[in-house]
């Protein structure tokens, strides 16, 4: 029974790519006299490897060694409109052709210049390694032609792109172009920049989310503390500036502030769950003679905090401002900062710095705005950094949500699959919203909110299950929310795949064979077949150890995870000889198969899959936030249990399917949902109980003593030497 979904015809990747299209060719590949080629990338590098992939595209098109390509990140360029947004795992899908075209324009211009100098036809020129050669023996490097080749006017020119059959760089494994800088400590993040006068700056925050500072009782006293130069109220708390961050921590803690209440002071996990359930529609009555599977799932808030906390450098003067930060939507940052400062947009320069991770966090410019406010308040440049505790408690998080599902089956067919997914409001106020409403004009989408549109454009059942209904509802509460890696999919797909296992059981089918039977496309069946073989589906395992399998189709790519989990009591209760190390069930083996369409860099693609796998494990088992009276309890990496080495699966294999001839799909977020879902399915089978609350350890007794609410950040310990090893 076919059940075509909206995403078959048009999905989030299409929406993002089409939004970028009108300005997609406003980019330039520059050839330098030293023979190198430069490109200022209009997307943010936050670890996903796009600078390397883009360098490969340019090197391929220009027949250059990769080392000759220099990639930097472009400043905010307002004229690019929707074409400077990094999100939805869309970068490569959107810029694959435009970047190659820009490189091909440069290449053809070089060849034309050589042909004119040598009075020979362009067709007689050969090109290799950045050198143009003619059979007469004439040779010229790109570098030697660079000046002459520059065209004084802009001309229309459409070059031929190199055919895929001639690729020698695309599709082969390459190490990251920034790897050496990363391992030597030379890679520069925002807090590593030396901007004259920009001194360390931190913020004291309210005891509840969105609380605001009313007054400071002891500003004069704090100003006399060693190293402290400035103290001022800003919209998010009280900012202090000093010689070192250590002295800022002392000052932040010493501040005596009166606070106004926040926006969600009365909310805790229990109140939120009541509101989410109340906002979720009931499922339809099952028809007579059908068997129904009903299930409800709760997903806790989850922090998208990267390892580099929110941070930015700002130098705000009376008539201009300059900002440095990792920003995935720098144009919106520039517009909103200009507005807040009362400056013309043209008076604000926004530099995009490489980020220490993002996972959705850098779609927002929270730190850049704070730095701008603080710099204006002090009349001095600032290097503003969030404390880790603030990053967990006041930073963005994937909102709590609730999923209600009913699936019905009869006579070997799944007749209906209904899923009502309700979430605390996800903030899309970072430009995604304008992009979606500005580009998606299908009349049937007219009345949907941005969130519902993104939900519909991204949520896709891989299985042909008769009448399939998936709808999003939102509870409008003012938490600090945002997308986290893979947005809705990890939770939505996890709930779906658990129910798929229940359906298979009801119908007496093997879970993998059942998925194969109902898979909507041949691509999925191929992924499942490789998973079954490489992952040794159905192999004999001890009681308490089990396998789970799940699929994903998103960002024009298909992926599947086959997971083995050990949930035996001796494993769950194992101690790690590490301070506050939280264990629980351990994923012991992951087989992951990905069909990315065209793969640009297999080594980078594998890295993204590995990262997504560890994210999926964390989201399923250990990594969530407890909300208690308007604030998360978690305030450190020993409270929020992101995957650590003691929970890493010892065996992981990532298999990349052969190129299918399609355009390249997105990779950055692809692996999270199928891994989370497969872990949940494996856990259900290992324990005999379907998990309904995520992360699975959320309702265990708290494994940590929450840090105090006030002051908002803890003091650094002094026992570091005792722990040296």
């Amino acid at each position, binding site marked *: 029974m076919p059940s075509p979904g909206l995403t078959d015809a048009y999905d989030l990747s299409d929406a993002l790519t089409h939004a970028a299209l009108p300005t997609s060719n406003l980019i330039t590949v520059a050839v330098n006299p030293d023979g190198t080629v430069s490109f200022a990338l209009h997307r943010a590098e936050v670890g996903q490897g796009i600078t390397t992939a883009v360098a490969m595209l340019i090197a391929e098109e220009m027949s250059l060694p990769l080392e000759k390509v220099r990639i930097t990140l472009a400043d905010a360029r307002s004229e690019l409109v929707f074409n400077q947004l990094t999100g939805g795992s869309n970068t490569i899908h959107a810029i694959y052709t435009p970047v190659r075209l820009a490189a091909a324009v440069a290449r053809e211009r070089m060849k034309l210049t050589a042909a004119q100098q040598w009075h020979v036809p362009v067709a007689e020129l050969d090109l290799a390694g950045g050198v143009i050669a003619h059979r007469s023996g004439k040779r010229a490097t790109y570098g030697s032609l660079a000046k002459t080749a520059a065209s004084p006017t802009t001309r229309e020119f459409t070059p031929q792109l190199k055919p895929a059959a001639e690729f020698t760089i695309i599709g082969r494994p390459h190490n990251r172009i920034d790897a050496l800088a990363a391992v030597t400590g030379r890679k520069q993040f925002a807090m590593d920049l030396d901007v004259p006068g920009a001194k360390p700056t931190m913020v004291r925050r309210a005891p509840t989310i969105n609380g605001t500072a009313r007054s400071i009782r002891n500003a004069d006293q704090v100003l006399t503390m060693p190293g402290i130069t400035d103290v001022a109220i800003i919209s998010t708390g009280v900012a202090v500036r000093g010689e070192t961050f250590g002295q800022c921590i002392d000052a932040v803690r010493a501040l005596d502030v009166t606070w106004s209440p926040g926006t969600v002071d009365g909310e805790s996990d229990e109140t939120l769950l009541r509101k989410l359930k109340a906002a979720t529609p009931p499922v339809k009555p099952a028809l007579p003679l059908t068997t129904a599977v009903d299930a409800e799932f709760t997903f806790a808030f989850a922090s998208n905090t990267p390892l580099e906390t929110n941070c930015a450098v700002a130098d705000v003067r009376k008539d201009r401002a300059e900002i440095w930060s990792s920003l995935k939507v720098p144009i919106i940052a520039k517009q909103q900062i200009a507005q807040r400062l009362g400056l013309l947009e043209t008076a604000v320069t926004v530099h995009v710095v490489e980020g220490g991770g993002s996972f959705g966090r850098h779609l927002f410019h929270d730190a850049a705005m704070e730095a701008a406010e603080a710099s204006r308040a002090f009349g001095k440049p600032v290097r503003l*950094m969030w404390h880790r505790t603030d990053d967990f408690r006041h930073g963005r998080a994937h909102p709590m949500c609730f999923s209600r599902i009913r699936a019905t089956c009869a006579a070997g067919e799944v007749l209906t699959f209904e899923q009502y997914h309700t979430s605390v409001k996800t903030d899309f106020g970072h430009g995604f919203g304008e992009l979606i409403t500005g580009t998606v004009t299908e009349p049937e989408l007219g009345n949907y909110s941005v969130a519902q549109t993104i939900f519909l454009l991204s949520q896709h059942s891989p299985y042909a299950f008769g009448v399939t209904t998936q709808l999003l509802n939102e509870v409008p509460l003012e938490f600090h929310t945002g997308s986290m890696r893979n947005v809705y999919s990890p939770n939505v797909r996890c709930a779906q795949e658990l129910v798929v296992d229940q359906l298979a059981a009801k119908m007496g089918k093997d879970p993998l064979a059942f998925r194969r039977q109902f898979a909507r496309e041949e691509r999925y069946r191929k992924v499942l077949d490789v998973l079954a073989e490489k992952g040794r589906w159905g192999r004999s395992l001890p009681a308490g150890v089990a396998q789970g399998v799940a699929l994903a189709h998103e960002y024009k790519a298909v992926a599947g995870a086959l997971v083995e989990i050990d949930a035996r009591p001796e494993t769950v209760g194992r101690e790690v000889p590490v301070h506050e190390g939280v264990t629980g069930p351990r994923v012991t083996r992951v087989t992951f198969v990905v069909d990315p369409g065209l793969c640009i860099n297999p080594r980078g693609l594998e890295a993204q899959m590995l990262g997504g796998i560890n994210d999926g494990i964390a989201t399923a088992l250990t990594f969530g936030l407890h909300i208690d009276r308007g604030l998360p309890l978690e305030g450190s990496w020993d409270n929020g249990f992101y995957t650590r080495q*003691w929970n890493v699966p010892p065996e992981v294999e990532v298999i990349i399917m052969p190129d299918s001839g399609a355009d390249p799909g997105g990779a950055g977020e692809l692996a999270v949902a199928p891994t989370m879902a497969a872990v949940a399915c494996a856990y259900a089978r290992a324990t005999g109980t379907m998990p309904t609350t995520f992360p699975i350890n959320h309702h265990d007794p708290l494994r940590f003593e929450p840090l105090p609410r006030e002051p908002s950040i803890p003091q*650094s310990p002094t026992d570091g030497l005792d722990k*040296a*090893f």
Partner: protein
Amino acid sequence: MPKHTFKLNGEQVTVEVPGEVRLLWVLRDVLGVRGPKYGCGIGVCQACTCHINGKAFNPCSVPISEIGPDDEITTIEGLPATVGKDLHPMQQAWLDRDVAQCGYCQPGQIMTAVATVRKVREEGREIGDEDLDKIRNVCRCGTYQRIREAIRAGADATE
């Protein structure tokens, strides 16, 4: 203001800063040594891991007053010099396996890896899964599998 003298990456340095300021900020904010990263400031994430007299430690949790003139602090910038090469074998192992994604935690990971290998060797053993399981360094990009491979390879290449 008190003066503090210590050896940093092979050179004697002196700083004037109150004694309670943690070494991480002396390195980053006073001396401009930016390889050690801030990740939590409370000795949890291990992003700032450096070596003191060859042992791994977190400078975010050590007041500068506890560092003496004979103490040798090594940051990621000074790691290659400890083996007299352009790159420490552990850094080369990291490059060979293309471990880093965003790279933010990687200086700390490498400093921890080097100390872990040294400690295990001193105990007369080779690196095993249990040793790798004990490493606390957080990598939010999830590069853990490649870190494990690189540590084993780096250990093999370390004399």
